[in-house]
């Protein structure tokens, strides 16, 4: 029987197996940030264990960082302390850190791919569930807890039971204005938030083959929102082209040799998956969520479903929505374009192409937050910043920002935010805040209209928006 992409990468990293138990999986790259690493450093220090392979660890500061005035000291004492702790830990242990202000600083899942740290066929971990993002390169990448961060520090390995395999295939052509974010929100709305638990997912079919690397990262990023530890897409010419010449990518002959190996990774034709789902691209439309988990999504033209489940009702009550109603024309005062899901250059190109020549609605506070210093520089270089400013938008500095209410960027109590981030949990963007997940296009259209609008009706504008 043939092997899946996942099997090939996994099998190449198994060091040993525990009898009747898990396997020891070797980890190529370990990404860390300020929030989930300090206790792991403490643990090793307390036990007198050195960091085994500091050269395979890369650190960034992202969750706690402000997105304005990054040159000034951080106001919040606890955030400042956590970031200082990261700097100390990295210096002490010889770990590369792209701290605030560094030209490579950014959200961990934006920074690593754009620097060529992420490469096909690797195993990568980070104390962050959205590590699944890197699967876009045909990498086994997944989030881990802090105890596991300590394990990787100590041994560059993890003890894991091999997950089951799942394949989601989407074939056909996406409609105009349907973005990668809509594809993954659609998949999660169909499969639910726990369909992937215990599985590693592969995304296959024309839709993903034709997608840019940025789009593939958006899709893989949200694999965890259906419970899957990770999601992968087979590496192809699009992948190789993206990785080529990046800062830490192999160069010249070494690169060619890697490409030859990477070409052997795609799933064999006769490989069998434990679970398979197939969708038709034509069925997907721009999506919005209406509830308090990412599975509670509808096409923007649809109405909120009716369900008697107590948790479903609690969720609608929190959102102050009624079953059976449409979200079109709902007034929205906050829009967030950013997060590890949608803060790459392509996301800002889409937003700018819609916004160009229009004006932000007066009632809307819009936060446009690039995923990294490099994305920020590119936004300026391509003239997108000028387009945003002409339309009344302000471009902020890189970081996780309003995705998780850990830094200064919080949505006030009771307010709705149309957000390109990945989680609409209660209070995720601030205590009492109400999140509506959407694509950068829907978010941009909301910011201009001051309310949710059916972008599918705006075909003329959409012609300039590619997927």
């Amino acid at each position: 029987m043939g092997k899946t992409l996942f099997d090939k990468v996994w099998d190449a990293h198994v060091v040993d197996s525990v009898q009747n138990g898990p396997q020891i999986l070797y980890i190529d790259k370990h990404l860390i940030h300020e929030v989930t690493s300090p206790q792991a450093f403490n643990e090793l220090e307390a036990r007198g264990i050195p960091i085994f392979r500091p050269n395979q660890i890369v650190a960034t500061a992202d969750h706690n960082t402000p997105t304005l005035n990054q040159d000034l000291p951080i106001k919040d004492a606890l955030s400042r302390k956590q970031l200082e702790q990261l700097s100390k830990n990295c210096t002490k242990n010889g770990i590369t850190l792209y701290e605030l202000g560094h030209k490579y600083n950014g959200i961990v899942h934006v920074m690593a791919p754009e620097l060529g740290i992420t490469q096909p066929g690797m195993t990568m971990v980070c104390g962050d569930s959205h590590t699944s993002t890197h699967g876009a390169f045909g990498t086994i990448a997944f989030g881990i807890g802090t105890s596991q961060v300590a394990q990787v520090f100590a041994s560059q390995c993890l003890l894991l039971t091999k997950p089951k395999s799942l394949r989601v295939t989407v074939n056909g052509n996406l409609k105009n204005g349907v973005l990668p974010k809509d594809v993954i929100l659609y998949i999660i709305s169909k499969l639910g938030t726990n369909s992937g638990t215990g599985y590693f997912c592969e995304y296959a079919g024309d839709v993903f083959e034709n997608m840019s690397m940025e789009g593939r990262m958006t899709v893989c990023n949200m694999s965890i929102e259906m419970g899957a530890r990770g999601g992968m897409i087979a590496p192809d010419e699009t992948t190789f082209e993206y990785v080529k010449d990046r800062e830490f990518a192999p160069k010249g002959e070494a690169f060619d040799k890697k490409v030859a190996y990477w070409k052997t990774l795609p799933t064999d034709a006769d490989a069998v998956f434990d679970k398979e789902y197939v969708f038709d691209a034509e069925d997907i439309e721009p999506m919005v969520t209406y509830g308090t988990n990412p599975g509670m999504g509808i096409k923007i033209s649809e109405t909120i479903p009716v369900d008697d489940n107590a948790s479903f009702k609690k969720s609608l009550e929190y959102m102050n929505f009624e079953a059976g109603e449409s979200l079109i024309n709902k007034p929205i005062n906050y829009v967030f374009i950013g997060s590890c899901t949608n803060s790459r250059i392509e996301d800002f190109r889409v937003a700018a192409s819609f916004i160009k020549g229009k004006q932000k609605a007066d009632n809307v506070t819009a936060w446009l937050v690039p995923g990294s210093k490099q994305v920020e520089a590119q936004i300026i270089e391509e003239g997108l910043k000028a387009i945003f400013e002409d339309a009344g938008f302000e471009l902020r500095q890189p970081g996780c920002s309003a995705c998780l209410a850990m830094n200064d960027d919080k949505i006030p109590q009771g307010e709705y935010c149309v957000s390109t981030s990945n989680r609409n949990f209660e209070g995720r963007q601030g205590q009492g805040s109400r999140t509506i997940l959407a694509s950068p296009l829907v978010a941009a259209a909301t910011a201009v209209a001051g309310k949710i609008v059916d972008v599918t009706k705006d075909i003329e504008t959409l012609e300039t928006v590619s997927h």
Partner: protein
Amino acid sequence: MEKFTTLTSRAIPLAIENVDTDQIIPARFLKATDKQGFGDNVFRDWRFHKNGDINSDFSLNNPKYSGSILVAGDNFGCGSSREHAAWALVGYGFKVIVSSFFADIFKGNALNNGLLPVQVSEGFLKLLLKTVEAQPETNLEVNLENQTISISNSDISESFEIDPYKKTCMINGYDDIDYLLSKKEHIEAFEMSR
């Protein structure tokens, strides 16, 4: 890590599905650099109103419920990988979480902190919730060696699955670091072979 063998305790019901780790411990409390003190803020925004008043409707605040077992709805612990969620539950005093389904990363984090996730059938979960809500003084018995969870003084019981390796770790208080360090030569040999 603390050892776990058996536990007999009353239980607190939490009949909500898809409890995510943002609810267990909101992000604004993740700024500590050690593992202490998270228990104070477990389910913070469900236990307290925004003005700081206690939400007496929430089961953890209901004086009729007590114990170190939490019986929660389906898909417990989804979302963020924050191990702070496990630290918060342990800090509050929980030793066992019962649900019909656990999210993957949370389950691993719990096991790495001596907090036992007990996955039961949907029917058994419903029965437990109903029993605990109707008779809060009911004790539940969890036996890790036999992999069973029962209602005390009754013949109502169900067995649960656990990875044999993790079971050994829980019973003996071992953690994965010790095991991985014992394999260092294998790991170095693997590196050389690539």
